[in-house]
């Protein structure tokens, strides 16, 4: 039987016209209710709302069963479109992950957003998105929760620490910019003036100027701090109350404050498990565990976190219960064929940060010559190449690629983190071996293990010898072990 989704679905059709038609009308009605201008756009609004209502009435979803070679298959379907009819089907066997999204607005209407993903999903959009009444999906989720055999809950302090490490000023500033922009559009010039006017009344900048910092630098500093704080809040609200559990159907992840999400990842969805460490975490013997899955991380800045900043004991304990097959490979390479970058490859690891440092010294020399006032600030940039020098030295000492009959274990670095990933051989979709002209001379290469997620996730392992790579069987063997 075809059912209609929650009435909030109307918003999907209205949202694109909302800021252009409905908000100006409401604004004009409040300002001058009896003017011609206020009501002139009313017919357009009625037409848009009418079409949206018809579009909502034309859509529906349901489950049907089909026979395929004596086997009954459940198929979820979704019909939509008033002018351009669309019929989308998703076989139940293919659903790899289910994502429930809740937020205060949806709570107000008693709705929940359900996103279903399959291996054939688009990198940016789920295979199927539905807005449904909250009751049924949540009772399904609660039922699954009762079957949890092992549960992990991240302590709030660690979530705060993770949010601090993930937050960067640029993303926060982007959020602020968007908010101010939207607020300006919604509420008119007066409020925008008030919002921006806040900065005029703030005299903190003057204090910084008194310390000897140039005004521009002080303002940039305040903006960066504000941006970072906003990014921190976004990350914190996203990952607060983080819990993960394992049940017979797969891995269940529940997280978020205000903007909450509940995610079920079937075993089919999980392609690799990876431990990541920043240098600071490595010094403190802490690690975070991430999952590389089908159907997660579609939102910008979203991470498929499983464990936040866990110590080695916790890591061993929880990983052995969540992923008993993969867990031993993180701690031992016994019985595996293992290769490492050659000993003389240290310079290759350090080359890029060294070049960065050289570029900063060059920039410093230019600033001393032409903009002496700012020249000490340039030296602060040395923090980044210094960090990368240390990180890559650690990567040089720890990188490896190992395999046995069923799994591959890989350790390397990605941006500012070290990673150790364990993946079943069957999860490897493609192996890419790249050589630049320098590597061709030295007989080294970069190996990329592409795993089967719709976002094309991959692990890059650098500066391995080509002839060592050829020793590994996953590059050429015919069939993989299940």
């Amino acid at each position: 039987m075809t059912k209609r989704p929650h009435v909030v679905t109307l918003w999907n059709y209205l949202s694109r016209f909302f800021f252009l038609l409905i908000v100006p009308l409401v604004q004009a009605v409040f300002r001058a209710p009896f003017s011609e201008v206020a009501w002139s756009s009313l017919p357009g609004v009625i037409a848009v709302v009418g079409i949206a209502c018809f579009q909502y009435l034309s859509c529906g979803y349901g489950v049907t069963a089909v026979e395929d070679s004596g086997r009954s298959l459940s198929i979820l379907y979704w019909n939509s479109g008033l002018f351009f009819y669309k019929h989308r089907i998703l076989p139940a066997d293919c659903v790899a992950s289910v994502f429930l999204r809740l937020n205060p607005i949806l709570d107000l209407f008693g709705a929940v957003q359900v996103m279903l993903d399959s291996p054939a999903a688009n990198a940016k959009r789920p295979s199927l998105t539905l807005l449904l009444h909250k009751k049924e999906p949540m009772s399904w989720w609660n039922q699954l929760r009762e079957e949890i055999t092992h549960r992990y809950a991240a302590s709030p302090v660690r979530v705060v620490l993770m949010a601090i490490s993930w937050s960067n000023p640029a993303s926060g500033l982007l959020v602020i910019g968007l908010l101010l922009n939207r607020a300006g559009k919604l509420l008119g010039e007066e409020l925008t003036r008030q919002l921006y006017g806040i900065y005029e009344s703030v005299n903190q900048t003057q204090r910084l100027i008194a310390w000897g910092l140039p005004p521009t630098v002080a303002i940039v500093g305040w903006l960066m701090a504000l941006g970072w704080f906003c990014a921190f809040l976004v990350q914190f609200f996203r990952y607060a109350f983080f819990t993960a559990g394992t049940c017979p159907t797969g891995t269940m992840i529940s997280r978020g404050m205000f903007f909450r999400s509940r995610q079920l990842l079937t075993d089919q969805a999980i392609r690799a498990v990876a431990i990541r460490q920043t240098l600071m975490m490595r010094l403190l013997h802490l690690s975070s565990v991430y999952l590389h899955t089908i159907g997660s991380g579609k939102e910008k800045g979203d991470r498929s976190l499983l464990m936040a900043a866990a110590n080695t004991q916790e890591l061993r304990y929880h990983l052995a219960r969540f992923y008993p097959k993969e867990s031993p490979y993180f701690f031992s390479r016994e019985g595996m064929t293992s290769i490492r970058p050659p000993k003389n490859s240290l310079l290759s690891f350090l080359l890029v940060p060294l070049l960065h440092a050289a570029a900063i010294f060059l920039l410093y020399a230019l600033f001393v010559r032409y903009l002496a006032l700012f020249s000490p600030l340039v030296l602060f940039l040395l923090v980044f190449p210094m960090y990368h020098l240390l990180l890559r030295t650690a990567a040089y000492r720890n990188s490896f690629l190992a395999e046995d009959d069923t799994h591959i274990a890989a350790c390397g670095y990605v941006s500012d983190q070290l990673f150790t990933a364990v993946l079943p051989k069957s999860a490897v979709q493609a192996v890419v071996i790249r050589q630049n002209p320098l590597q061709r001379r030295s007989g080294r290469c970069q190996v990329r293990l592409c795993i089967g997620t719709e976002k094309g996730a991959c692990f890059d392992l650098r500066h391995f010898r080509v002839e060592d790579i050829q020793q590994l069987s996953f590059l050429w063997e015919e069939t993989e072990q299940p």
Partner: protein
Amino acid sequence: MEFALGKNSIRLWRIRGTLVALPACFVCGIVAALFPIVGIILCIIFIVIYLLYYFWYVPRLFHSSLASLENGRLTWRTGVLFSVRISLRLETILTASISRTPLQSLLGLCTLSVRPVGAPISLRQLAEPDARELLRRIEEAADD
């Protein structure tokens, strides 16, 4: 089983290179008219790059590009300065398609795109019979 690129791929790359070179020639001419010395230096650099591309890079790219099917794996090698070797199991391929640009169809070439879960991989400038044979093998692997 190995599949080299279609022989006309050399011609195709040279035509493309020449098409790109034409507007660059025009720009060089303008620069030479305005700043003769800079223009002449630019022209010399540009001609050297073009000749290197035409007589050195293209033949090498042709010889270094190869698709092979071995032990149920499809391997694609390409690149002269930056070499790339991509290897994937046939059973991981979700979709495979053959496409042609007008220039490719004129020269009897085509592009075979295979998509495992994630980003697609394009095997460009294959001879059409070779691409069809590869596609048939991929279909067979999917049936198994």
